[in-house]
């Protein structure tokens, strides 16, 4: 019976990518599109079955971008359910200190506030600014937010449901010292949208 103990523990961790090389490449290209064309909605992570509340798209991003070089901060609910999954599949160190994290995953948007807790990089090394993966209720093309900036031909509008009242104002303040800032990837189930620090977001 003791022989079953080790496999049983592993069996509790749902699988990662079926094909790590090609899944990661394909998802990266979607993320690259998302980051270089802010507000573009991408579909990722459909094949995965991560431990709730870690969402499909968030999990796919973790598998694609995170490893032993990237300390990760998880909010309470994600940490409780998915710490083992993230450690096992990404080999990434988890940190309790927000400012040390290269990536952070939040089960819901209110948990990311205040944004100033995260690393915004420096004027000399702005790339140290963190990438925050924030799970929201829903993301829709066309809506109440108007996006402008690099990667956007004119303006693009989206709707994000599940954001705290003053989120966009806090984000603008947090990123007011460009090139310092945090980059956001918002996810909802299998969709995601990126909002890098260069994007101006205006609630309409």
């Amino acid at each position: 019976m003791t022989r079953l103990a080790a496999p049983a523990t592993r069996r509790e961790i749902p699988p990662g990518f079926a094909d790590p090389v090609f899944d990661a490449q394909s998802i990266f290209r979607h993320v690259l599109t998302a980051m270089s064309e802010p507000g573009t909605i991408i579909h990722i992570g459909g094949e995965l079955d991560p431990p709730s509340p870690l969402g499909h798209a968030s999990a796919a991003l973790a598998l694609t971008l995170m490893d032993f070089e990237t300390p990760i901060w998880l909010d309470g609910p994600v940490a409780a359910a998915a710490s083992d999954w993230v450690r096992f599949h990404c080999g990434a160190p988890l940190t309790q200190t927000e400012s040390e994290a290269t990536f952070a995953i939040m089960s819901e948007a209110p948990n990311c506030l205040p944004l100033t807790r995260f690393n915004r990089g420096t004027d000399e090394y702005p790339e140290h600014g963190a990438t925050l993966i924030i799970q929201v209720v829903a993301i829709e093309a066309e809506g109440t937010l108007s996006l402008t900036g690099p990667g956007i031909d004119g303006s693009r509008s989206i709707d994000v449901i599940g954001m705290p009242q003053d989120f966009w104002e806090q984000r603008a303040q947090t990123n007011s010292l460009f090139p310092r800032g945090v980059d956001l990837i918002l996810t909802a189930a299998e969709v995601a949208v990126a909002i890098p620090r260069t994007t101006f977001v205006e609630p309409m």
Partner: protein
Amino acid sequence: MNEQTIPASGTPASGKTGYNFAYLDEQTKRMIRRTILKAVSIPGYQVPFGSREMPLPYGWGTGGIQVTASVIGPDDTLKVIDQGADDTTNAVSIRRFFARTAGVATTDETGEATVIQTRHRIPEEPLKHGQILVYQVPIPEPLRWLEPRESETRKMHALQEYGVMYVRLYEDISKYGHISTAYDYPVIVNSRYLMRPSPIPKFDNPKMDNNPALQLFGAGREKRIYAVPPYTSVKSLDFKDYPFEIQKWEEDCALCGAENSFLDEIIIDDQGGRMFVCSDSDYCQKRREAGYRGKDPSAPRGNELLDDAAESA
């Protein structure tokens, strides 16, 4: 659930060739991919990365190759150009490298490519939304000749202190009556970062501005990646009284008659005969296929002559 369905993270694809897919191991690709995303989110800023040894010498575009290798997938169609031509030794080697290590389709046609790796030109045919242009960069730092210390140039970028570059260009004007820089002409990206566009002719600079394609720059020896997202402002440095100007030619392309294309001067015989032809071989070919003719349409293309010369040297 069967335990064997849990793949170990980062398992390399052992293709039929025994290489990792696109040569690089998964951890390296992940690191470069993270670097590319930060480069995109800070347009024009050079992000340091852990450049890997590649099976080609520096100067063969190892930075561009690492970027392409981290981006490319089995559904991509790759075009590689060197000085505008698809058929030079360098371009052929890189194309073959990716055909072998990634099994991707390759093309000479700008419009067919999803990823274009380039050394020293931007294609004449306008790039499209969804395409990725990867530049091979020898020296990424625009301020390097003015300030050799990395710690100082980093500060200058941080403070947006680019006065020395304007002074350098203005010295040109007082010496020659115009700005003599014809290649690698400095630009400002998104009204913020001074950027070196790699040694493209300044003729190509206006194509970078507000381009619908994503532009990625890889410098292997200097370990830097930078980017210009689509629809991003890229302005060539100039002065009110000396506005930026691109190269112009008295002649049209001798083969296809193009009036607005970047021309190479080609020596066609040992009597000193010469002619001007499009540097972009695919563009020239497409025009000739469409029936356009220059004044000497039957002459061989310059690159064929140059390659012959290189092989006999």
